[in-house]
């Protein structure tokens, strides 16, 4: 963990058991999810999670580059987790570093578990996660946004991935650490889960926990994952919801115009067999 010295008089957990932002140990920060926020990308999502602001975009399946990365029997997942230079207090040098490379790798592996990769041999699914504003928990926010973007892109998956972290601050196991708690806390356990089956597809830990504390942390995270899962599904429902009014307009638009004269057959071409339109 951060190992930074706590300022004198600053308490991570107060006498009422509340955290510095007023949350109870098992409480999430406010989360907002929106699907389909970018035009060019095939799928996209925006997540605000406490003070984190994260954007995810998905392209593919498309031809995998470089070619030697192609897999003959399945698609590969290419992930780039990136922090904008202005997303942190002290400007971050642009471009990948060791931390972001590692995070990109474990996120790609988490998504590889849920995507039906075998349906798209030799291709790549690109998941691009941009952290616009960071406040601890960006990889979890990124994964949560990324899986909504994958669904928005219509990539077949057996489940969405939800990610959330729990840890230990001021001797107390807590859900979803914020920046100060992450800096001064004793442990952090980010995890990613496919909620339908409970399969853990991402798990990292740093710090110091007893086995019992780890159990408690995972219990908090599993519980929270179900709440976040609902928010993900709700974002997708909002994106694709069609009102009765929309449907009526759509049907009117699609109705063929009344024929004014006999159709001239010579202007119609059927697709030739074997030729794709």
């Amino acid at each position: 963990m951060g190992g930074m010295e706590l300022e004198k008089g600053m308490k991570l957990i107060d006498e009422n058991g509340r955290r510095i932002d007023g949350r109870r140990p098992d409480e999430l920060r406010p989360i907002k999810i929106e699907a389909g926020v970018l035009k060019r990308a095939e799928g996209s999502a925006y997540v605000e999670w406490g003070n984190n602001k994260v954007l995810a975009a998905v392209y593919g399946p498309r031809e995998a580059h470089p070619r030697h990365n192609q897999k003959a029997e399945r698609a590969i997942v290419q992930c780039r987790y990136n922090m904008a230079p202005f997303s942190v207090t002290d400007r971050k040098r642009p471009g990948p570093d060791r931390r972001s490379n590692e995070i990109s790798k474990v996120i790609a592996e988490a998504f590889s578990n849920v995507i039906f990769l075998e349906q798209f041999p030799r291709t790549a699914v690109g998941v691009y996660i941009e952290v616009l504003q960071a406040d601890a928990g960006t990889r979890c926010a990124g994964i949560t946004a990324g899986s909504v973007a994958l669904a928005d892109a219509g990539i077949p998956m057996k489940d969405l991935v939800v990610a959330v972290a729990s840890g230990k601050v001021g001797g107390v196991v807590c859900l979803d650490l914020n920046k100060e708690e992450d800096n001064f806390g004793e442990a952090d356990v980010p995890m990613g889960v496919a909620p339908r089956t409970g399969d853990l597809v991402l798990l990292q830990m740093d710090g110091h926990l007893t086995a019992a504390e780890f159990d408690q942390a995972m219990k908090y995270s599993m519980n929270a994952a179900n709440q976040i899962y609902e928010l993900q599904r709700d974002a997708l429902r909002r994106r694709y919801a069609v009102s009765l009014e929309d449907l009526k307009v759509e049907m009117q638009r699609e109705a063929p115009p009344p024929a004014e004269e006999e159709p001239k057959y010579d202007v119609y071409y059927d697709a030739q067999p074997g030729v794709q339109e």
Partner: protein
Amino acid sequence: MSELVSELLRSSIKKELAAGRRADGRALDEPRPLRIQKGLVKTAEGSARVWLGDTDVLVGVKAGLGEPYPDTPNSGVLTTSAELNQMASPTFEAGPPSAEAIEIARVVDRGIRESKAVDMGKLCIVPGEKVWVLFIDIHVLDYHGNLFDAASYAAMAALTSAVLPGGKLGIDDKPLPLDHTPVSVTAAKIGSTILVDPALDEEAIADARLTVTTDENGDIRAMQKGLNGSFKFDEVQKAIATSQRVGKAIREIILK
């Protein structure tokens, strides 16, 4: 970064342009609608997200303390960089900034630097020792053509929202000292037609590109001609006049 355009689309755009019509119904000297959201990123000292049509660019300004360059001991430091994120287009590739990204950052930088938009003298704290160092980071989120203008508007809008964090010096926060508002207007030449603010398909088939940055007096502060085609002198004069006229309305939106 090369966009593919089918021959069919290319010829139809050209045919329509010959009759003075653009695919999205705009007049030749009409930019796409501009929308600006300032202050989105709280970790930045200034930020702005700009939508120019569907092109979506986020700029963050970071201000820190550092040493001045030896040849300008009484002035702050300004650095502009751009990233064409893979998120923004299927044609953007991973890796260090491409020549395109560097060109965009440098043209935006020139407009701001040469117009003296920021009062660099006021960024000096101790001459030769301590000055404010500004980083303008251009983050492209959705690419639908004309990144030069979208990035330039986002950078300028982010600067207008920027605050120098006095906390680092034990003084009050103060707004970034700004004197001018440069505005770039980019024209694209397709065949013999010249149009402003090229959308994605227009940009992809353009023969030449010309960015003209003017200030509130209509004076020219930066120019950049791009691509393999060429302009006649009178076409450049026209592009300058258009930049002055179109830039006026855009400046009002940036300063709002």
